[in-house]
């Protein structure tokens, strides 16, 4: 499997996490519970994705398809009900939905390559670049970044995965 896929995945996960944090802190609250909700929900999603085996190609496709709608669900929710903390459990659920894809990605990638070292190295490098992109993107135009960056980074990952012909 192509190292570029791991790198693109790390980049995509960093951008997604950054956008979840920035969305909640700008449209809901910068208090600790926003960060705790995103962190815990993302980790819970990853854990579930790591533990559950999505064996059929239909299930795997569903995992890919659920990722972006989860992010844009939070984006839309915060536009519809800004600063309404009652929706935080719903947002946490959607963040977990995105995390589920990350967990599945690690499980499926390891199953195919059996090389955790390479997987984590490239994914981590992509993640660092994604964090940097997040910082620069929010400084340049946070509003646009929140709208476009998750979709673009996800499309990038999808293209790399298709080119590498990996069946994630």
């Amino acid at each position, binding site marked *: 499997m192509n190292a570029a896929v791991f790198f693109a995945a790390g980049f995509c996960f960093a951008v997604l996490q950054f956008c979840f944090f*920035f969305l909640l*802190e*700008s449209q*809901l*609250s*910068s*208090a600790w519970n926003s960060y705790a909700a995103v962190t815990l929900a993302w980790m819970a999603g990853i854990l579930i994705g790591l533990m559950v085996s999505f064996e059929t190609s239909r299930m795997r496709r569903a995992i890919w398809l659920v990722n972006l709608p989860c992010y844009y669900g939070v984006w839309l929710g915060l536009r519809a009900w*800004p*600063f*309404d*903390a009652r929706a935080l459990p719903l947002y946490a659920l959607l963040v977990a939905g995105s995390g589920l894809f990350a967990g599945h990605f690690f499980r499926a990638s390891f199953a195919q390559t059996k090389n955790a070292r390479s997987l984590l190295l490239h994914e981590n490098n992509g993640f660092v670049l994604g964090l940097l992109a997040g*910082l*620069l993107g*929010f*400084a*340049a*135009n*946070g*509003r*646009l970044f*929140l709208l476009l960056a998750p979709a673009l980074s996800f499309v990038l990952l999808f293209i790399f995965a298709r080119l590498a012909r990996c069946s994630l």
Partner: protein
Amino acid sequence: MVGSGSFEAVAQALPAARHVTSVEIDPVVAAAGLRYLSGGRTPEHEPKWSIEIDDAKHYIANLTGSVDVVALDIAGPFQRQVALLYTQEFYELIKRHLRPGGILSVPANGDFQKRPETASLIVTTLLSTFPDVFVVTRGNGRTSFAMAGTTLGFGKAELLKRMKAEGREDVVVYDRQDIQRHLQGRLIRPLSLANMDVVLKQGVDRLRRKFFKA
């Protein structure tokens, strides 16, 4: 009163206020301020004072009524979370919850007379959101703050007269026209979710000062 710090601003506001609510995001900061920094002028037992542990954006957006004064007693826009409290979006939230004649008070973070970048940015953002804006600076250049509102109901002359009557002889007051003249020729984009590069610039400046001292 957004932010707590030493609670000095609360102590200053209490004699003239019917009620003061401090909004502080971090309970530990508030507790430390009360314990170590308030210098015996702690408002803890003052019936006209209360404190809400909440993010100011969330607190103000969920206010049911309106208020006379919102005063920001916070650090400069040098971190993302704090910078959000200097944006057009936050000022719009405040505008919706100010009574007619209500005042927003904002620290300008620098000597406005010398047109530093951060102070100019803050004041430009206020100008883009509120029709009435005044900047007050002290002669020693150490203090500048801005007042803004939709219908403040007083002018520069009245403000100057009042401040001088209180013994502040060295103040300089800028009204909207003065500010525009003062900042003429500078291209400044208001701080908003679509423009927060001040955070990055400040971070880079700080790193440069720390590691690449001239």
